[in-house]
């Protein structure tokens, strides 16, 4: 199957485009998947993924020549806003947001021809092999190694937090190819089929009892040299650049907004709505969210203008994730004894204070822990020494 090519929506004015998106989403997105409380598996979001593929809407940021929508920054923001407003779930999108842009910039012609169409068609679903159990926020200390043996790399090691690895048939991987070099300088970027002999995947059960993440083990896994992206030992720079988009994404008010809307429902259910102490804390959180939105808008405007985000965008991530957690703090307080429950209250998945509280825990850890973000702010924004 090959995906459709969408018309050039940049010719529409912003409001028209917004209306088009809104209509498409309302008509096509499965209502039962709106605002899902957890990351969806491929089996669940495949239908929607294929609808996007058919419409030619799968890759808004890719240039049109590679099958993307070629949307301007502004139009991409509108698309995202409308998806978020409707509660559209994130798809298994690592091929779309990571591998595609990587290959468009650094891939060979042959790699582009080989991989891009299968992302657009939904045939290849990618996962990301960056994190390692002993690296954590110090990503560059990774130890999974790939040794050249004739025309093949032989990979040994372990990745962790590989999101939805069980749903993916390809993985893009950071590996160490030069153990002598300084830690950032011996890293390469490899593309590996998940059905390669020697790969095994073990789901990680998280505190909220979900299995979104995996550990992925590599035992003498062989891939042809042709699967190397860019130059050997130059993978780190590409990998960092790919993470760049994460920096504003992690600061999006979406999660906090979601948690806040659930807080509202819970407050009604628990009958604390008229409690002045609750109201005071609720309004404080509401203002924290409103000001987060204003600050986020400031950074979105930078992106819209096509400018580069500075390291100060780390402020967004810190405030967003900690606000998210503070909202869930209040939720479990007002939930009373229901905070103890493993399942949502009364079978209503929108009333799940404990689940949401636990989901909020890693927000301050992943994507560069908030401690790392504060280090970045201190050193790269405030120019503090050391």
């Amino acid at each position, binding site marked *: 199957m090959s995906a459709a090519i969408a018309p050039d929506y940049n010719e529409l004015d912003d409001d028209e485009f917004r209306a088009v998106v809104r209509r498409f989403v309302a008509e096509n997105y499965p209502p039962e998947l709106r605002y899902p409380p957890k990351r969806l598996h491929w089996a669940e979001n495949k239908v929607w993924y294929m609808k996007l593929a058919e419409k030619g809407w799968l890759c808004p940021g890719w240039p049109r020549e590679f099958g993307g929508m070629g949307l301007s920054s502004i139009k991409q923001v509108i698309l995202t806003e409308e998806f978020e407003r409707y509660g559209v779930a994130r798809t298994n999108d690592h091929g779309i947001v990571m591998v595609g842009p990587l290959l468009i910039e650094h891939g060979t012609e042959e790699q582009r021809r080989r991989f891009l169409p299968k992302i657009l068609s939904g045939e290849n679903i990618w996962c990301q092999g960056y*994190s390692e*159990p*002993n*690296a*954590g*926020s*110090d990503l560059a*200390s990774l130890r999974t190694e790939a040794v050249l043996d004739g025309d093949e790399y032989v990979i040994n090691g372990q990745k*962790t*937090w590989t999101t939805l690895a069980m749903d993916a048939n390809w993985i893009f991987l950071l590996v160490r190819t030069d153990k002598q070099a300084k830690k950032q300088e011996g890293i390469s970027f490899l593309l590996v089929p998940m059905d390669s002999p020697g790969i095994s995947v073990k789901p*990680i*059960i*998280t*505190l909220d*009892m979900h299995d979104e993440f995996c550990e992925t083990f590599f035992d003498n896994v062989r891939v042809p040299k042709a699967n190397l992206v860019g130059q050997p030992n130059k993978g780190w720079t590409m990998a960092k650049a790919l993470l760049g988009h994460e920096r504003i994404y992690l600061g999006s008010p979406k999660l906090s907004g979601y948690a806040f809307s659930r807080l509202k429902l819970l407050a009604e259910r*628990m009958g604390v709505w008229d409690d002045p*102490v609750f109201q005071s804390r609720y309004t404080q959180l509401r203002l924290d969210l409103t000001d987060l939105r204003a600050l986020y808008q400031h950074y979105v405007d930078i992106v819209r203008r096509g400018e580069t985000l500075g390291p100060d965008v780390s402020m967004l991530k810190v405030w967003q994730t900690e606000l998210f957690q503070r909202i869930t*703090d209040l939720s*479990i*307080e*007002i*939930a*009373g*004894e*229901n*905070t*103890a*429950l*493993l*399942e949502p209250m009364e079978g209503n998945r929108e009333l799940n204070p*404990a689940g949401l*509280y636990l989901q909020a*825990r*890693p927000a*301050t*850890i*992943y994507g560069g*822990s908030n*401690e790392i973000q*504060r280090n970045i702010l201190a050193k790269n924004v405030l120019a503090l020494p050391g």
Partner: protein
Amino acid sequence: MEAAEDRGESLRMIRDSAAAVAPREGDLKRIRALRFTDPGFDRTVWREMSEMGWPGLRVSEDKGGSGLGVSEFCALCEELGAGLVPEPLIPVAMAANLLPAEHLTPVLSGERIVIPAWQERASTFDLAGTTELRGGKLHGKKLFVPMASGADAFLVTVKGGLALVARDAPGLSLEIDRTQDGGNFGTLRLDGAPAEAIAGDAEQALDEAALATSAYILGVMDRAFAMTLDYLKTRQQFGRVIGSFQALQHRAADLKIQLALTRASVESAAATLDSSSVPAIRRAAVSRAKARASDAGMIVTRQCIQLSGGIGYTDEYDVGLFLRKVMVLSNLYGSAALHRARFAAVSPETDDE
């Protein structure tokens, strides 16, 4: 001074005896194996605990108990918390505090597990309710009954007193919800279940259960913090042990302060219950300790997750078990907010404050 030394010795003995079931350095395999099972605890272990006299620790010697103080009971509960012991000592001990002698023997021996059912709505620490015993039959509904799936009988608070009802009584239906710690809460519906009236008032026993829960939380946070300190001392990042980073050091120092305040609060509340018979003073002490333990327990275990980084978010790593336990206990027997309000209401301010 000698009395104080005796007391210290008695507390040490209790703590030592707890190690039989919950050694401070032990692993949590047993706890993990029991999670999300039915009834969520081990009756063999419960009988061992009973043989050590724990359900009757607070029951007077003439009724077959040990007649020890609240301080001893809290010391024991703290140790059990450090081991995340799931056996329902606190509710059963509450029932034992209330049952007349003729019902006590099988409870103290561990053969019969009686769990109090006192609560009729969320977020309350008030015994008032609408459940009634009429003509020997119970009518009403009780919520959030801890570890209910392991109960042989329930001691139900009713208008004007208490009632003992067997779990298999006709007219009793029990619905079980799993809890984050791997245990369960029961919702008890009583539609004419035959029950025996028990004279008494659960208020003091409920206060003791709240304080014992605070002590249990203290144990939970203490062990979680110890575990996290070990992690900080061994985990390396950026070529350094992460515990050498000042920002993490200062956070650890703040958690240590939370622990110290909680210990001071719980231990002084226990001493108050052992020495004062003035209701307002007793209630204020309990509320103060439960407010502190509930808040500090959440602060400490939540930060332990953060300090542990990614691995702290996995179910496989033990630190999450401690957070989940506090999530169950922090709002049980009254949340921090509720106990703060109760403290303000019962404890008149003096000029000395």
